[in-house]
């Protein structure tokens, strides 16, 4: 059984020591010269960075820097006008969200994209779409494969429910849940897909200290236990410094920093961007 409690200090230890479940590997995602424009607005300009397998990569930057757009590009919601994306060394073209999902990329959204008409359990089960291969005829007639899949998916989802400690609300309609729990359920839905890469868009926005600690713990445990690579956008510097392996800093759609938290923290360009020195 894993030690579920961590203080901030031991979280920092976690990142630097070698006692994590999966050692950081080679590049799983490579972004080269990505440029994204909306009409006349340059959302992203020639962004290049990579994400190593099993690492926790943070994307930070002031508001409007293009962080969410970056995530949307990785996951196929937006198509960049220029640049390439490589997944495990293979060049990808024509990325769409379903295709990203099939490749093992899951994500959460800044403004909670849960299915408001369904319960927590159903939302998580919906996240198992790629593991529900039975056709509608099989489901309608409740043929063995459909029944088996339903039970197997339920087992997988119950593991996640236990992991995220949301047993008490599993049948509650998500619309009735407080904000913090909704964010946790959304994380659960992303985990339900058993992804290789988890894209988290401000997973701790609007949370208090305890909720943030819980979320940190979940993210670290997912990375440690399943080896899931995590790319997260976050504003809380404490969280970023504590749990991430490496950080990318964006400002006005351009990359202005890339490295370990310590390197980024002492980068003058980054400091200027946040403190707003006159250009």
């Amino acid at each position, binding site marked *: 059984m894993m030690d579920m409690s961590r203080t901030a200090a031991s979280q920092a230890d976690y990142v630097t020591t070698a006692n994590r479940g999966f050692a950081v590997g080679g590049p799983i995602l490579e972004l080269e010269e990505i440029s994204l424009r909306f009409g006349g607005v340059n959302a992203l300009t020639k962004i290049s960075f990579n994400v190593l397998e099993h690492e926790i990569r943070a994307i930070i930057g002031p508001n409007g820097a293009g962080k969410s757009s970056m995530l949307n590009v990785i996951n196929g919601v937006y198509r960049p006008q220029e640049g390439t994306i490589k997944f495990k060394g293979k060049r990808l073209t024509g990325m769409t969200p379903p295709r990203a999902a099939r490749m093992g990329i899951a994500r959460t959204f800044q403004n909670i994209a849960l299915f408001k*008409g369904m319960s927590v359990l159903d939302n998580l089960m919906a996240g198992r779409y790629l593991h529900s291969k039975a056709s509608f005829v099989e489901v309608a007639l409740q043929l063995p494969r459909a029944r088996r899949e339903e039970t197997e998916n339920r087992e997988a989802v119950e593991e996640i429910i236990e992991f995220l400690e949301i047993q008490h609300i599993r049948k509650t309609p998500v619309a009735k849940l407080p904000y913090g729990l909704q964010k946790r359920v959304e994380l659960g839905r992303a985990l339900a897909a058993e992804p290789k890469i988890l894209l988290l868009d401000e997973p701790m926005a609007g949370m208090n200290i305890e909720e943030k600690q819980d979320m940190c713990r979940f993210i670290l445990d997912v990375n440690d236990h399943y080896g899931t690579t995590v790319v997260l956008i976050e504003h809380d510097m404490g969280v970023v410094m504590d749990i991430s392996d490496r950080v990318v800093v964006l400002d006005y759609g351009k990359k202005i920093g890339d490295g370990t938290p310590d390197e980024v923290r002492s980068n003058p360009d980054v400091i200027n961007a946040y403190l707003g020195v006159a250009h």
Partner: protein
Amino acid sequence: MLYREAGQFRTTYAQDSQLLPLWQDKVGMAAILGVGFLVIPFVASDYWLSALLIPWLILSLVALGQNILMGYAGQLSLGAAGFMAVGAFACYNLILRIEGIPFLVALFLSGICSAAVGIVFGLPSLRIRGLYLAVATLASQFFIVWALDKFGWFKNYDIAGVITAQPIIIFGHNFNSPQEKYWVVLGIVVVLTLLAKNMARGSIGRGWMAVRDMDVAAEVTGLPLMWTKLQAFAISSFYCGVGGALFAFAYLQTVEPSAFTIDLSFRILFMVIIGGIGTILGSFLGAGFILLTPIFLNIFFHTVLGKAVDATVASALEQIIFGAMIITFLIVEPLGLARLWQLTKERLRLWPFPH
């Protein structure tokens, strides 16, 4: 006291996802089906069977189809009657042109025809939503009825314009009495309802609801938006088509385009809203409500005002009642009669205790 779940534990996931987990529900359902199949045909009058029960079952089936599209997949449709018409005419033509085709096979194939047409008219849903989609379905309604009317081939070039539906012959037996027609309809409706329930509660239904609630997030879980929407249109139209064929063969006994007007489409819409959007039970409750209201009005006028009600006054009152109920339900209880029933059941759980 009676309706308690205490002591009934589900120890496996399979048990938890049963359709009727409580034994009270199992017994209740068995009783309803037993009464439906074994008691009613012998007890109810021909009028009750032909004018009330049969149309109620058929329209519930169509409302179920509409519910699949609107309630589960969130696609607004005003074209249910059009797809019914496709089913009716398909069934007529199949029996006419394919010698010796069994009725049930023809019925099934009519549903498939409706599904195909449904897919075609569902294509706009890939790009538009809400009101715009409603207009596209209106287009389907008007176009389908016009086409079935104008292209003589569908009516076998019958100049009278009103075709008699062929008799329902299953395994050599001619089902032509009200009781026999009722059995056929009840059997088909029970089976199709069960299939719909299984789909709605399983991965298929979750896929539809995901599309309804937030299609971008649905895509992110890997769901192919286009296929899922078209699948909803196809299955929904299948139900409407089978319902339409039964409407012509087991109820009206005629096959004519003028039976499938925009007015019928609106009625089906009302059944879904009043009954409860996105529920299977709601389709039945809504259909019952819409069918029974004119009758209640009649009885009301007779007993309270002591005279027969003027037809135009009756129809005007009907419209006011339906419209007012829609508005009231949407404001007060958007989940309709089905939700009210659910709340009653929850009260029953505690009865005779207040809480």
